[in-house]
């Protein structure tokens, strides 16, 4: 339900942080594709919206010292269409291209997708699989932490009042990736999604692998047990099937009523998605 609110549009990160710190009932507005929907439905809405879209320094995509840096205000459509990203990190552009409709992708930002902390958000598994770090800036400076440590639970992050997510940093690493999303209709939030980033030799030896899944638990999950099973091994059909069994036990499916599918079905889906994703990475190797 809409309520009256105030609106400001600062020009700098520092100014934005200061306003956010001083007004306890305030929220950052980027693309608004999640926030505005929540404001229509939840009766407790922020008194002040801090529109950060004018902060130009948060809109860059760049490679620096081999590392990919994405500003938090970069839109999903820009990620989908960026040459740098489609060439080197196609799982990111694939994930972005599967989100919402073009209109939503033109508005929605990568930072917003992260900070909204939806357990099934499409950008999160590929970023985690790529070993992304996030830079948080507050009134007392900046710090960087792994993205997988950024989430506390559904809709909850480590961000404090007066802090903004400013940048996503993806380290250089050898490998190939895949992103898969399971939905029933088009333009739908993922029922489940998976990202795999792996360094697999020509003859099928897995030197390194990172697997992350969305809508598989209360927050996006890194599937470390499954990774360990596959790492430093030769990938065979049998091993992948075994990994599928492991991942189906490693996920933490929600049992809350609003979840649209049963935990049992979700465990099955995790197997199907893992097998398909690994086959896709290996296929890309050949």
């Amino acid at each position, binding site marked *: 339900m809409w*309520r009256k609110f105030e609106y400001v549009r600062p020009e700098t990160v520092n100014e934005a942080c200061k306003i956010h710190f001083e007004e306890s009932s305030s929220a950052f507005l980027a693309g608004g594709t999640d926030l505005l929907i929540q404001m229509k439905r939840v009766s407790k809405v922020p008194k002040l919206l801090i529109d950060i879209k004018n902060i130009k320094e948060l809109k860059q995509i760049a490679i620096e010292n081999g590392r990919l840096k994405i500003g938090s205000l970069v839109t999903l459509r820009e990620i989908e269409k960026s040459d740098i990203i489609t060439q080197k990190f196609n799982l990111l552009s694939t994930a972005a291209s599967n989100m919402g409709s073009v209109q939503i992708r033109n508005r929605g930002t990568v930072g917003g997708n992260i900070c909204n902390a939806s357990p099934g958000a499409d950008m999160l598994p590929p970023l985690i699989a790529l070993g992304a770090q996030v830079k948080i800036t507050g009134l007392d400076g900046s710090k960087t932490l792994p993205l997988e440590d950024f989430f506390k639970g559904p809709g909850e992050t480590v961000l404090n009042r007066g802090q903004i997510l400013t940048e996503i940093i993806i380290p250089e690493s050898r490998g190939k990736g895949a992103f898969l999303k399971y939905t029933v*209709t088009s333009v739908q939030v993922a029922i489940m999604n998976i990202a795999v980033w792996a360094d697999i030799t020509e003859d099928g030896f897995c030197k390194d692998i990172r697997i992350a899944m969305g809508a598989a638990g209360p927050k996006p999950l890194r599937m470390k047990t499954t990774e360990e099973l596959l790492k430093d091994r030769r990938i065979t059909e049998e091993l992948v099937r075994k990994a599928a069994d492991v991942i189906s036990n490693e996920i933490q499916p929600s049992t809350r009523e609003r979840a649209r599918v049963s935990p049992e079905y979700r465990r099955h889906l995790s197997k199907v998605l893992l*097998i398909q994703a690994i086959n896709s990475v290996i296929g890309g190797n050949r």
Partner: protein
Amino acid sequence: MYVGKDIPRIDAADKVTGKAVYLDDINFPDMLFAKILRSPYPHAKILKIDTREAEKLPGVKAVLTHKDVPKIPFNSSYRGPFHAYYPFDEYILEDKVRFIGDKVAAVAAEDPLIAEEALDLIKVEYQPLPAVFDPEEAMKSNGPQIHPEVSSKNIISEWVIGWGDVEHGFKEADYIFEGRYKTHRQAHCAMETHGSIAKYDLIKNELTVWSSTQVPFNVRRVLSIALDMPISKIRVIKPTIGGGFGGKDEVFDEPLCALLSKKAGGRPVKICYSREEEFIATRVRHPAIYELKTGIKKDGTITSLHVKAILDGGAYATASPQVLRVNATYFMNLYRYLNFKFEGYAVYTNCIPSGAIRGYGGPQAHFALETHLNEIAQELGLDPVEFRLKNIRRDGDEVPVYGKILGCRLEDCIKIGAEKAEWHKKRREKNKDIGMGMALHTHTTGPPPRIAPETTTAIVSISEDGSITLISPIVDVGTGTATSIMKVVADELSVPIEKIKYVEADTSSELFDYGTFADRANFNGCNAALLAAKEVKKKILQKAAKMLGSSMENLEIVNGVIRIKSSPEKRLPIGDVAKAIYFEERQPVIGVGEFIPEVNPMAWGATFVKLKVDRRTGKINILKIISVHDVTKAVSPEQVRSQIRGCAIWGVGFSLYEEVILRNGKMLNPTFRDYRICRSLDFPEIEPVIVEAEVDRPELFVKGVGQNALISIAPAIAAALYDAVGIRIRETPMTPEKVWMAMKDKGLVEEE
């Protein structure tokens, strides 16, 4: 001839350029905006309600609770005295709430945000009452009683109908089949949500209401009952509608809006629903439970069909009694049974009220009947097509409620569809996980005159310059009906359609009409306009005969000019004749059409579906739908095809994706994020097929096609699913998880 030809719709330009005026586009300088406080409880008594704080909020102009409204019961769907079996179980506001989303109080304020804020300030003390959400549970005598004053055991309506002796028929049968089938709640999802504006004139005690409605005259009638006002003091105007689908087939907040306007000193008050309100507080498709028992002989003759039906009507009766009665007709009309019995109940629960929605119970009844018959055919090794050709209704059959069947081309629909689908050839080719299925449907064109009165009116006038005005009370809900009605008039008068101006009459015209539902608009509208055109044509031909010194029989009208058939150079433009009638005969040039159908043409059709099942996920991918319809005559073929396509997509949504999910009466998915309707990317290939009949003046028999295609999609999908992977689903929607579960039970699931 315009009938049968495609021309641009008269409303097309306004709609694509954004000029069409919808309810929310209407504003008045002193207008107030209203919001409604809704119940968080599925069943509760309101013990105390304190609005003092809300009233103090600057900008608030009127607050209403149950204490401020007349204690007059009504039924929001009431169409007249023939609806004596409709319980009057609603009040504008009451001290009791019966579903989550039920109205508790309303506020009108200077702007919608103030009204919303005021809702927060209303203090309500509820006493929660035991609630019941399952219709079978609700029918047990010892549970919560939702409307004890008008019902016992929560039964809204009971309907038993049939012929012969089903028990005897079972004895004569070689095989007996039984099945239980369940369908779910679906929402209308019209692009435009519900809304109304009311303006109460305190001096004249007159009320004007603008409403996004399919039924202006019904809205006026119910307003008159609920507010205890004379009909003559109420005017209902319908602006352009952004979709109805049955959801706007009854009264919603018009009475509340009127009282708010009255309390606010006569200032106009607007209510527009949010999408969430649209989901939780309007109407849904009746969830239904069917138990079918069929007796059948070795040669495929059906000796008995016994149907037990329970429709979940939700918290208020509204149209449930009618939906129940029509439900029986779907079973009775489609096939010949030696013995037949339908025993049905519509039942109250503490859920969102069920009401009219595209298909009007048809998708539910047909899912049960057609799935059941497909199962029987499969079990007995009969070809479902041949099995049906043996048992379907044919011309001359007499059925209860509707009477004698005439002009039925169901057999052709089946044969044409089977040929297009290459049914006999393709069904033998076994492709892994690909299946084909078929199902039939029947639907009404207007309520059957035996159970509901039918009439509509129209006026056609010719002005002194020869331009033509067609005044019709038919509500074009966006289907193009107005354009079709104009075509009939243009053809009858042999004038270019550009010469005709269409005036959509509001209730102040007193051109009575029941409204747009049951696919009645085109049939009734075209015929009333045709009668009006005939009358005015007679007047001008009479005068022209005098002027040209000829007889009426020797005259013809060609492109707006009257001429003598044998000597076409002797001619008069229609305008000159009209002018002469006005100024020489001193008479108006007007024709009035009153159409009272004796029968309503029943519409028939067949659906063929081809699909592929993903064994890993249970996901169904529909490869093709062939949707065949007996329409007698397509007045506007492309509009008919677009109705078939759009309606088939509804069917896909109903079968696979859409579901209003309630937990203890609370809707868990009241957004388009979570309630999944088909988007353009989800549309399968649909081939609409129109089957026409060779009849004289076919517009007299135009059959409805607005609700039909959806009806037989779900059973056709269920049959194709069985053909593809050998599983039976007897409960809609057929979600991937449900399909996966059924496959898993049979060891058919794959992981890669």
